[in-house]
């Protein structure tokens, strides 16, 4: 697949969901072993072109997520490269036990893609927002969990999933016109966090859309004399504990930022890693509270939950006063 400036701009404009569909279409041109299965969500997953051009590599099981996972497992057991897609709550929770038995227990290699996770569907209410998927998916043995920072990383994660031996959950966050974290190709390896920006005072571990917000927050912090290291934790499981260990002794504060519940996601992963480290810096977990809050348009939703760059920067400054 060609990764050039033009493609990156297109990806960013169309957003992570449509990027996923585009990548699957490109991959299928060369790999006829791919089958993408939708649960009546082909348009939302950007799969309409695949459906039209390669009908043999597309399947729709209708609005039946339990069947979606079972059918996917059956196809995977016969050697197909299977992707399943629907909105994140239905992809992870409606069929949670099917995932546990068919993919976790039996290790059938399926790549599940949770569309529009986090708060992007805010105005549709919390039936459609998804703030628990990382937590739930990572607790199931044998499931790899990815949370791409932007559209290019969505493409990289999708490509990497084909060669990966375990079943995978890819969590897609953000909408269209998604900010670019990466402006050129880079090395993506499942399980390895990426230091995007060096800094000496604090370390911000972020995932999904919050990687970009954290970079912006670090620019604000810079003007206040705080130098922040930014780490993109695109893999939630297996978690890069080594990187946390390496960094946690060198800074005076660790911050995690995620568009996910503070229970069970990135913040919990870092806290678990830190619990094994002597003399680690204190840790502030920024994320979503335990509530189904008000529903608003996405940007307002992020603001209401203090997840915009200026709010993240301010929270960090406040916390630094207490260290």
């Amino acid at each position: 697949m060609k990764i050039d400036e033009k493609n990156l701009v297109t990806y960013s404009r169309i957003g992570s969901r449509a990027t996923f569909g585009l990548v699957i279409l490109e991959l299928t041109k060369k790999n006829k072993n791919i089958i993408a299965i939708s649960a009546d969500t082909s348009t939302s997953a950007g799969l309409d072109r695949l459906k039209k051009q390669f009908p043999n590599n597309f399947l729709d099981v209708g609005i039946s997520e339990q069947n979606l996972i079972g059918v996917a497992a059956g196809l995977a057991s016969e050697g197909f490269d299977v992707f399943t897609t629907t909105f994140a709550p239905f992809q992870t929770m409606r069929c949670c036990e099917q995932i546990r038995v068919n993919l976790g227990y039996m290790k059938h290699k399926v790549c599940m893609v949770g569309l529009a996770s986090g708060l992007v569907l805010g105005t549709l209410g919390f039936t459609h927002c998804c703030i628990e998927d990382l937590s739930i998916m990572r607790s199931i043995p044998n499931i790899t969990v990815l949370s791409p920072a932007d559209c290019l990383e969505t493409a990289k994660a999708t490509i990497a999933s084909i060669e990966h031996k375990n079943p995978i959950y890819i969590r897609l966050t953000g909408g269209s016109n998604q900010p670019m974290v990466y402006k050129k190709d880079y090395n993506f390896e499942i399980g390895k966090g990426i230091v995007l920006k060096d800094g000496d005072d604090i370390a911000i571990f972020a995932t999904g859309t919050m990687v970009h917000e954290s970079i912006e927050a670090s620019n604000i912090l810079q003007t206040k004399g705080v130098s922040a290291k930014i780490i993109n934790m695109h893999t939630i499981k297996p978690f890069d504990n080594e990187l946390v260990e390496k960094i946690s002794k060198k800074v005076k504060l660790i911050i995690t930022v995620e568009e996910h519940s503070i229970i069970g996601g990135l913040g919990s992963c870092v806290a678990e890693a830190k619990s094994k480290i002597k003399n680690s810096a204190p840790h502030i977990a920024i994320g979503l509270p335990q509530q189904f809050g008000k529903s608003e348009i996405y940007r307002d939703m992020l603001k209401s939950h203090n997840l915009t760059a200026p709010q993240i920067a301010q929270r960090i400054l406040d916390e630094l006063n207490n260290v």
Partner: protein
Amino acid sequence: MTIELENKIKKMATNMRKNILDMSLEAGAQSSHFGGGLSIVDITATLYGAIMKYDPKNPGWEDRDRFILSKGHGVLGYYTALSEIGLISKKELLTFEKSKSFLLGHPVMNLKKGIEFTNGSLGMGLSVGVGIAIAAKKKSKNHKIFILIGDGECNEGSIWEAAMSAPHFNLDNIVAILDKNNFQQTGSNIEILDTASLSKKWLSFGWEVIEVDGHNILELIKALSTKNPKNKPKIIIANTIKGKGFSFAENSNEWHHKILTKSQYDKAIEELHSNK
């Protein structure tokens, strides 16, 4: 030929029932799903003795017929059938539900022993079968997919998701068998959740439905070997008796999951010999 085949299956089923008694006695306090294992014995004996294509020397043979025990608690009727075809030894059968045994109370995937899939949580096997059937069509393979489900299992909504999809995908390589023993864990179907008119339900979902006596080997052979109508999945509603073969267990739901005592074992062995 038919009589020979029938006798062969009957002999297999008798051996299987004897092995089930030995396994249940040996399992002791671990207890076993006795009733629902016995109701499927004649079905699995027929499948492995007369219907399915497989190679015991090569359990992963690509063109083998696939079997999924969706009602995973029916393992007694599954492991004993795999023993009849030489994939599980008698010695191994007697490790049933012991620590470190590969023969658990629900099947755990172990292809070299003939166990194709992990089951135990009800309502999942039919969907997996649909996926395998689609894969076979895509690869232009002729093998069939046999999925054994229970009537209690039909309480699960996921069964009906799969039931709706198999005719939609024209899967005439699927043969489901419904073990209709009229009981589930804590009572009869009628008491717990009435699954009346199952035949009509499957028919209305677009399946070819054949109803048989699930303990009549000839009826089973005929129903299982009849070709599916073009583009249609087939389901055989097998009317069975929970605990079939032993008077104290037949239609007695306390035998859903129960310890077999030595005196019950002795009585059962006696009945097995007199029924031969």
